[in-house]
């Protein structure tokens, strides 16, 4: 690390006051929960605090200020709670509070539809506060406490509608996975703190762990932070829990909390451990590549809109981890300039994903409010009934499919540029892994486009499939404003990526001791990651070209050819079928891709029950898709635990003599162990 130890700077007071205010709002939420005015008050207050926190973090990041620290005499006696806001924390504070602010704006409209506000209002600000505290924490105790608070509070919101059986299961699995994650992080910090047990990050940062300890800590950080972020195979809770929450909280869970997981990983692996080894890059890369492809394939198989979005988060986490893995690999080989590029690609994707995934969850929430449906196969034609939501959702779909000129493309493009540097890496394992990961990344980008053509096409285009979709209505202006703010961010970050890259420079400087070339001076606002002769991209010019050539063409044709238009029946080759059920549905759209990819990966079965000619009973079609993570990891594990518990159950019904014997034997064994140990 470049800078070790505690530096003096402006105390991190504003950030902590914001977190404290959010906690106070949470307490107020308990009091106001039953009042009809509680919802607007809580969300307006959260909005104000988040805007303040975001602005503070933004000025801190842009000013390149030295880290601000603060120690409070709360928490464990004689140790206290340490807080520190450096460039990395400031960036993640922007992500958290931007997401929090816009979610609060959205919730001003959406929250009115909440049937049980008392189950959401107290937890929502507390959730935001906990995420802020995780990012600010500067000792392991504060970090873990905030992390656990974040998990528990978000679990409480996931369980807001606890009477639905699916939500109960989601909450249970979430709780198990969250506890597992925290346990792993606890062990990681324990290892890093060593025998002396100083849990302040400054001390951990200053001591260099031995190779074995560092290796274990990296693996534990991957498990702990990866389970929060949704790395395959630790992703299983995510597609269950994220859709179960109210939609604005789903946006926070998917768009923001997964990023806090990534923050945890970066903080531990890049900052606290430091000096990575090549194999850690290799492992992270492999996991990232597999996560990206499996995530998007899972998403393609879904027909519940919110669950599709949640699965798709898994893909984006994979893309971010590919960037981080490359950064580790480059850093391990001393190629700091390349590590800066890969790290910034990953962090840029963190920002992008938080923006467009929140936007898409807001859109799904709007659809849910307007129709009461999450199942895409019961929607359709919403572009006519909800035109504004349809525009915002479309921008989100283009952005998340990594298509130019929007922001998703820029971060993937930067990741590809980092991949193209990697033949310079000396290790053969990395040389073989990186192109494979590049192919997986390309595959996941193409599948993401297919996934969002499906999501948008089946939900918003075509003809309405049910009465609910026919009678949908546009949502309120708060929700629409929130969606359009995010859509504007997607466009801005896509056409002016140079500003984002420059803003991220201090983070890269801290973590990998180098920065990307400064983009501000590049002519025409292009971005040049390495050198102009090597690669450059200019979203602004592309967008300007696209708009000008499209309007030029349309203008010329309308002016000089014809603009005559006639509305008529559907053509459909002369045989239009009146029933909207003859349209392609979500599962029929995914069928070719399902057959190509899912037969082997997911053990897909299609069961067709077609009645014989003349038989009047209905035909049936069923698709079965198995999640390999459940099939090969969690299923056997759950069976083993269940089986072991059943066997051990006999121990409950012994006589007192046998219990005494057991205790005695246990004592003997323990004494023998102690004797052997010494």
């Amino acid at each position, binding site marked *: 690390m470049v800078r070790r130890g505690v530096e003096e700077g402006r105390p991190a007071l504003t950030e902590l006051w914001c977190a404290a205010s959010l906690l106070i709002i949470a307490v107020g939420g308990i009091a106001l929960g039953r009042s009809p005015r509680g919802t607007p008050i809580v969300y307006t207050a959260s909005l104000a605090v988040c805007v303040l926190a975001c602005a503070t973090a933004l000025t801190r990041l842009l000013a390149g200020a030295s880290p601000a620290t603060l120690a409070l005499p709360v928490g464990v006696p004689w140790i206290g709670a340490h807080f520190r806001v450096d460039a990395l924390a400031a960036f993640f504070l922007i992500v958290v509070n931007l997401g929090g602010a816009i979610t609060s704006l959205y919730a001003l409209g959406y929250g009115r539809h909440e049937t049980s506000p008392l189950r959401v209002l107290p937890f929502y600000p507390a959730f935001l506060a906990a995420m802020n505290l995780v990012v600010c924490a500067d000792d392991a105790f504060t970090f873990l406490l905030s992390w656990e608070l974040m998990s528990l509070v978000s679990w409480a919101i996931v369980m807001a509608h606890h009477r639905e059986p699916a939500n109960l299961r989601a909450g249970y699995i979430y709780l198990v996975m969250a506890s597992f994650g925290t346990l792993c992080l606890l062990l990681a910090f324990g290892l890093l703190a060593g025998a002396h047990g100083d849990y302040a990050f400054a001390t951990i940062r200053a001591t260099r762990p031995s190779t074995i300890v560092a290796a274990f800590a990296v693996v534990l950080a991957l498990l702990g932070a990866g389970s929060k972020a949704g790395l395959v195979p630790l992703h299983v809770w995510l597609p269950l829990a994220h859709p179960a929450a109210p939609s604005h909280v789903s946006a926070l869970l998917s768009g923001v909390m997964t990023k806090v997981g990534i923050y945890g990983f970066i903080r531990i692996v890049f900052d606290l451990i430091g000096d990575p080894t090549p194999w850690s890059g290799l492992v992270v890369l492999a996991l990232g590549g597999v996560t990206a492809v499996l995530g998007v394939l899972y998403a393609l198989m879904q027909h519940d809109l919110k669950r599709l979005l949640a699965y798709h988060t898994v893909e984006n986490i994979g893309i971010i981890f590919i960037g981080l893995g490359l950064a580790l690999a480059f850093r391990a080989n001393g190629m700091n300039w390349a590590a800066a590029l890969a790290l910034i690609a990953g962090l840029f994707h963190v920002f992008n994903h938080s923006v467009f995934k929140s936007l898409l969850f807001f859109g799904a929430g709007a659809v849910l409010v307007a129709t009461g449906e999450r199942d895409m196969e019961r929607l359709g034609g919403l*572009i*006519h009934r909800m*035109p504004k939501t349809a525009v915002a959702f*479309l921008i989100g779909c*283009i952005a998340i499919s990594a*298509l*130019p000129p929007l922001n998703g493309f820029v971060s993937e493009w930067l990741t*590809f540029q980092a*991949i*193209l540097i990697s*033949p310079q890496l000396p290790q*053969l394992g990395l040389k*073989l892994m*990186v192109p494979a990961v*590049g*192919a997986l990344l*390309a*595959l996941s980008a*193409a599948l993401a*486009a*297919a996934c969002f*053509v499906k999501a948008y*096409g089946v939900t918003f*285009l*075509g*003809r309405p499939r049910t009465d609910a979709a026919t009678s949908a209505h546009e949502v309120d202006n708060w929700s629409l404003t929130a969606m359009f703010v995010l859509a504007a961010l997607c466009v801005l970050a896509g056409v002016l990526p140079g500003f984002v890259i420059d803003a991220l420079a201090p983070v890269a400087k801290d973590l990998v001791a180098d920065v990307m070339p400064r983009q501000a001076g590049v002519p*025409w606002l*292009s971005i040049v990651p390495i050198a*102009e*002769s*090597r*690669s*450059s*991209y200019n979203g602004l010019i*592309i967008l300007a*070209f*696209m*708009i000008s*050539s499209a309007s030029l063409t349309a203008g010329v*044709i309308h002016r000089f*050819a*014809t*603009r005559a*238009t*006639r*509305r*008529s*029946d*559907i*053509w*459909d*080759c002369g045989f239009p*079928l009146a029933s909207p059920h003859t*349209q*392609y549905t979500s599962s029929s*759209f*995914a069928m*070719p*891709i399902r*057959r190509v990819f899912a037969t082997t990966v997911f053990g897909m079965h299609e069961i067709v029950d077609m009645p014989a000619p003349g038989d009047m009973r209905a035909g049936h079609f069923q698709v079965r898709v198995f999640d390999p993570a459940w099939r090969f990891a969690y299923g056997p594990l759950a069976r083993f635990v269940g089986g072991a518990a059943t066997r051990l159950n006999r121990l409950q019904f012994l006589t007192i003599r046998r219990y005494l014997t057991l205790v005695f034997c246990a004592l003997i064994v323990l004494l023998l162990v102690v004797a052997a140990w010494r």
Partner: protein
Amino acid sequence: MALITDLGLQALQMFLVVVIAPFVLGVTRKVKARLLRRVGPPLLQPYRDLWKLMHKEAVIARNASWLYRVVPYVVFAVTWVAAALVPTYATGLLFSWSADLIALVALLGTARFALALAGLDVGTSFGGIGSSREMMIASLAEPAMLLIVFTVALIAGTTQLSSIASIFVSAPPGLRVSLGLALFALMFVGIAENARIPIDNPATHLELTMVHEAMVLEYSGRHLAMIEAAAALKLMAYFSLIACLFLPYGMAMTDKSQTAIAIGIASYLAKILMLAILLPIGETSVAKMRVFRYPIFLGGAFAAAALAVFLLFVSRGF
């Protein structure tokens, strides 16, 4: 003054591709017809078709949304931008740096995304089948395409098409295994992306296996003209790409004098004509495939490109 010259050269490339694209399509159709012992349509027929379609009234389904009417122009514009950014007769044009090879592939992806959405807009089963299959083909072709990009980028050390072309001319990489594999894969991908036989049949309208034509079945009039023009431009973009990457000879490089530009344009036209004659020869020698055999075809391209990239990662000598 220099800026105006540069802008002019860029505009020349932009209009060159759009003007000759229908002609190139006419050549492929003519050659194909001759190979099938038919007379075939005149070489200028695609222009007449476009002219006719542009002047016809557009018939739109009652439930079509604004998206349906906007998409043809978007698809045309995006494909045009992509085709105009591939160096044709000269390298180092004014805006050649605004999108590299990866961005070009993604731009074509944007056009495809828009068209696939339009296929779903009216809500017919034909549109759905077309969109669904188009995205399936894209999900197989795009990774192969990006691996091809990796191959040439690793050899040239850059993803800028302009720089790749100049590097390949000034320091020829010679006969490389990886470049051969990449060319092979690029031809396969180009065939799939442009809906040519054996993946799709551009001449069919009523066949169950059709992809692209099913997707745009509802379109008529000026909208259809835009989509047809975009398809011709996409073919041009792929031809220009093959010409620029594998036959970059004759392009005007640093010297932008009139003779150099004339040579550049002449050589470009010759290369494009050669490809336009080779494509139908390939097409007539194979039969159309079943839909679920596409993964084998495109998997071959993917495997070839992946092999090329792996070879380059192991040693720069391949």
